[in-house]
């Protein structure tokens, strides 16, 4: 257990830039955009009508129904959370592809293997980093980013003489929205487990470019399968490679919609128009979907293969 904890800390040391700085940088960018937005609107309003319109708008905000304000904040929080899920996937994509390849490339694998750590522990520590540690850091990063955004928004509200506590802070559904992101990260990890497992295998197996193996082999297989079916017209299995991969990727890219099927009645579900609680309960529906479990089984098998390959591969 002590060893496994040390392995997770090691991953954090190596990838602190990607895991910690990425969510914070997005948060800072959001805040900067807000400030720019304020500056341009303010100038524009002053130029057009001496600023009366903004003053009028600021005064009327007190009479807006709090439910509408809450709804607006929910839209912002869940929308930005959705962006974070998307970014997290790309961060993890590059992290996993390098995780069992980079140390073979620079030879440091021979140092890691000179320590009493089994290959199983090593590979599982990479998987746990991708599915648990990095998402948790992103949750922290999202919370800090939202708070920063709200603080700057409060300052802007104060400039207009609006009390930010009654208008903004009292109307934020902290637990629901941040909870939705946390649960979303969990569902994302579960839905993407087959993808992560495949990437781990590619990283462990590849001699030159894990990226090519990870991306182009499935694409090639998909095309071959497509043309086989188009030409031979004898599809016993009734599965589409692209469709299968697409389902898992779609659910992983956007976990907030992952609980939905692909039937027409669910197509008008817009997660940003729901409250955090509704999104959470929708995501939980994924547990009734057998595809989730097929994916987890496939992911587990690929992780097993990655461990097996890791024992032999010491160089690139």
């Amino acid at each position, binding site marked *: 257990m*002590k*060893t496994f*904890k*040390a*392995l997770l*800390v*090691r991953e954090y*040391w*190596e990838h602190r830039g990607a895991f910690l700085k990425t969510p914070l940088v997005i948060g800072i960018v959001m805040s900067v955009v807000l400030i720019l937005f304020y500056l341009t609107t303010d100038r524009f309003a002053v130029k057009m009508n001496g600023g009366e319109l903004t003053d009028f708008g600021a005064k009327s905000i007190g009479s807006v129904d709090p439910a509408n304000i809450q709804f607006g904040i929910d839209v912002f929080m869940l929308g930005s959370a959705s962006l974070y899920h998307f970014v997290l996937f790309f961060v993890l994509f590059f992290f996993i592809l390098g995780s069992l390849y980079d*140390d073979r490339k*620079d*030879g*440091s*694998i*021979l*140092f*890691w*293997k*000179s*320590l*009493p*750590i*089994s*290959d199983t*522990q090593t590979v599982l520590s990479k998987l746990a980093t991708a599915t648990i540690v990095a998402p948790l850091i992103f949750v922290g990063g999202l919370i800090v980013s939202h708070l920063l955004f709200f603080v700057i928004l409060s300052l802007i509200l104060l400039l207009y003489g609006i009390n930010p506590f009654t208008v903004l802070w009292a109307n934020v559904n902290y637990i629901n929205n941040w909870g939705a992101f946390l649960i979303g990260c969990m569902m994302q990890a579960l839905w993407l487990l087959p993808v992560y497992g495949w990437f781990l295998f590619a990283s462990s197996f590849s001699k030159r470019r894990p990226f090519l193996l990870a991306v182009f082999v499935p694409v090639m297989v998909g095309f071959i399968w497509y043309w086989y079916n188009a030409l031979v017209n004898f599809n016993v299995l009734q599965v589409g490679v692209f469709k299968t991969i697409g389902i898992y990727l779609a659910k992983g890219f956007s976990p907030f919609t992952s609980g939905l099927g692909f039937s027409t009645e669910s197509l008008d579900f817009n997660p940003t128009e729901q409250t955090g609680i509704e999104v959470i309960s929708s995501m939980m529906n994924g547990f009734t979907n057998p595809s989730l479990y097929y994916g987890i089984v496939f992911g587990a098998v690929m992780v097993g293969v990655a461990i097996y390959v890791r*024992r*032999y591969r*010491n160089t690139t």
Partner: protein
Amino acid sequence: MSQILTASNVNKKFGSFQALRDVNISIDKGKIVGLIGPNGAGKTTLLKSVLGLDSCDGDLRVLGIDPFKKRDELMKEICFIADVAVLPKWIKVSQLLKFTEETHPNFSIEQAKAFLSKTKVNMEHKVKELSKGMTAQLHLAIVMSIDAKLLVLDEPTLGLDILFRKKFYDNLLNDYFDNERTIIITTHQVEEIEHILTDVVFIREGEIVLDANMEELNESYFEVMVNQENFEEAMNHKPLTIRKVFGKHIMLFKSTSRDVIETLGEVQRPSVSDLFVALMQEEEV
């Protein structure tokens, strides 16, 4: 247990290439063994099997453990330096020591810090900021702070200058080695390590061609500076090699007794590298 390593009929094939051929060897506690062979002879392949980094056929036991099956268990008792460049570049020295302490039950972080305090290695530096020599010092400091029964060094001083190389082996001998430990070294700079070796193993095309301790070598191999008048007689004793230096012939003999050889000229102890060259040529003829 006095036997640290035993191999019987160990074979390894890469496709149709036989990298190791019926290797039989046993190494006792308290030895410093030089594993010497030309490039591609199978040194690294053998060491990889010993360290559990690759599988092999036959019966190989290190400290009674099958290395490939239980590498993590074995690594509690042995440690190795494979090349100077294998420490991860991104890590800080302090993090490296901390990680090793957390994962290795026989590692003493105080000792490692004491070793490093004598060098220019700074705890806050990243490995990529260190020079090649400092990286080697850092690696050696970590390895020497591990209470291991067997230390394996595969070209540990490759690419280092002569000052570092000398210091490296001095540290190893003075601060680390005792009769409870065993060291296996491979290097191309045989001259630099031959004075510290207790045993030598020559390997060629995957086969062990010589496995002897230094005393045995000194009793059976002689280098003689043959005088001109004894040249004919010396040739009758079938020297392994002949070199001509300043008009005199230096010949290498394998013989069971020193007495006959002494009559031919001035007898010297042959260097391991000369012996190595001689034995490699002998096999080729």
